[in-house]
């Protein structure tokens, strides 16, 4: 007579996915420039908006983008969230600020971390600048920038966010 067993209601079966990413021309150019500590975008020949990271086309106009534009590592806070839970696979400790930032010279935001700031004082229109890792640690990654920190410049009015020239903001 067989022993009575607990029913098996489930097992853990993790799946790990490892991909080889084929960057394509535009992201490859972007990644090789950020390897040298330079943020670059591409300008749409039709609407003249500058994309970072560039994907080789303008999703609004449906045309190829080729003109490379060197951007500033100063940026403006378009919006943000203060996150109180950890990110799976990322050692960062909450609370931390994930901000949608528009680099001077670009017309679209990317997300990055904000630090060296008082969380409660972060606001839309705030001026920030990249804090880079030491040069010897640079790789083909946006993580070459550790985070962005506030700088002593006047706020950008909401209607001007995403329209600043690469020369920056005079206030």
């Amino acid at each position, binding site marked *: 007579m067989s022993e009575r067993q607990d029913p098996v*209601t*489930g097992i853990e*079966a*993790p*799946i790990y996915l490892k991909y080889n*990413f084929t*960057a394509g021309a535009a*992201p490859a150019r*972007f*990644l090789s420039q950020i390897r040298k500590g330079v943020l670059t975008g591409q300008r*749409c020949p039709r*609407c003249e*908006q*500058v*994309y970072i*990271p560039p994907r080789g086309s*303008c*999703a*609004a106009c449906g045309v190829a983008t080729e003109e490379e534009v060197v951007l500033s590592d100063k940026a403006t806070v*378009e*919006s*943000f*969230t*203060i*996150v*109180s*839970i950890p*990110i*799976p*696979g*990322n050692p960062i400790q909450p609370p931390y600020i*994930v*901000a*949608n930032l528009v680099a001077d010279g670009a*017309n*679209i935001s*990317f*997300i*990055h*971390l904000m630090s060296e700031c008082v969380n409660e004082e972060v606001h*839309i229109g705030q001026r920030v600048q990249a804090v880079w890792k030491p040069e010897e640690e640079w790789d083909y*990654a*946006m*993580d070459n*920038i550790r985070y962005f920190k506030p700088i002593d410049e006047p706020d950008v009015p*909401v209607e001007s966010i*995403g329209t600043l020239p690469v020369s920056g903001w005079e206030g």
Partner: protein
Amino acid sequence: MMANLAAVVGIGQTKYTTKRHDVSIAGLVREAAVNALEDAQLSWDDIDAVIIGKAPDMFEGVVMPEIYLADALGCNGKPMLRVHTAGSVGGSTALVAASHVQSGSFRRVLTVAYEKQSESNAMWALSTPQPFSTHLNAGAGGYFAPIIREYMRRSGAPYDAGIKVAVKDRLHGARNPLAHLQKPDITMKEVEESFMLWDPIRFLEACPSSDGACAMVIADEGLAEQAPRPPAWIRGVAMRSEPTMYAGRDEVNPQAGRDCAGDVYRQAGISDPRRDLDCAEVYVPFSWYEPMWLENLGFAPEGEGWKLTMDGATSLDEGGDIPWNPSGGVLCSNPIGASGMIRFAEAARQVRGDAGDHQVEGARLALGHAYGGGAQFFAMWVVGADKG
């Protein structure tokens, strides 16, 4: 556009809950399908095709689940099609099923959508690293929180508009025995004091993680007229998409959502949605999306959606003129892949007069809505008690 008339003749749902220990994914979808067939008083042999939808495969780690679910859904010898449009998939799956019938190619189609979140890790699946970006994706809430912050800024809405939605939808859900969260005693204070997850989104302003499935049987005009229970006539169907990111994109009030609403209203002969519709089931996974979608869907002028919320216009309990999410909505039950179809099915229940304690009295015309991805995929239908 020429389309044949089609109608919902059967609806089946499971009780939404944190974890369905007792069934597999196959058992879950079959339960909803059997409930829909029973509601329609039909059997498997009466079904000509099966359309199934769910959110990304990575959620449960079951890749191409339609292959495994074909026999549970009686697909032997029948066409089967799987649909995927991220969070809006439940809505777009219903629309693919509807188009099978509206085209005249099929007379009766079964459609099912599901998610078994207890077997998945949706937060992980939505937080995969990308090679040209920093790894800061903190789930759906982390993505939508900055968009909500921008809405709050530009509308000047009072800080507690989202809190009001969170309370209102939970009170609605307390009328719906299928709703996952049952919080009949919830208060504004309780929501306000709940943990701030992704500022400005609090714990109680976010949807739960649910197991569940929803199914419908859609039939052509002739068969729907013979149906034993009142049909919900499909009066308009629309889908729209836009890229996740492009310069100048309005993420708060996406163009694709406005266009989709305009299209479905035109088909249904709706000129003023607040006046012409009796209720709406709208995809609101975070509380602030009620005022945002009130504007996107044309129920209120831009910047004023929150006024309808604060005035109680969207509340059953306050006798509002345009109840939103009388079932409790996504804020009460969120089996992700099914959530859009539940909105479509609950809209149909309202015009069939079959919504129990959350019935909007005399409802004749209702909107079902779903959105997904980075608020870039939209699916909507309008269903009516009459053919129109």
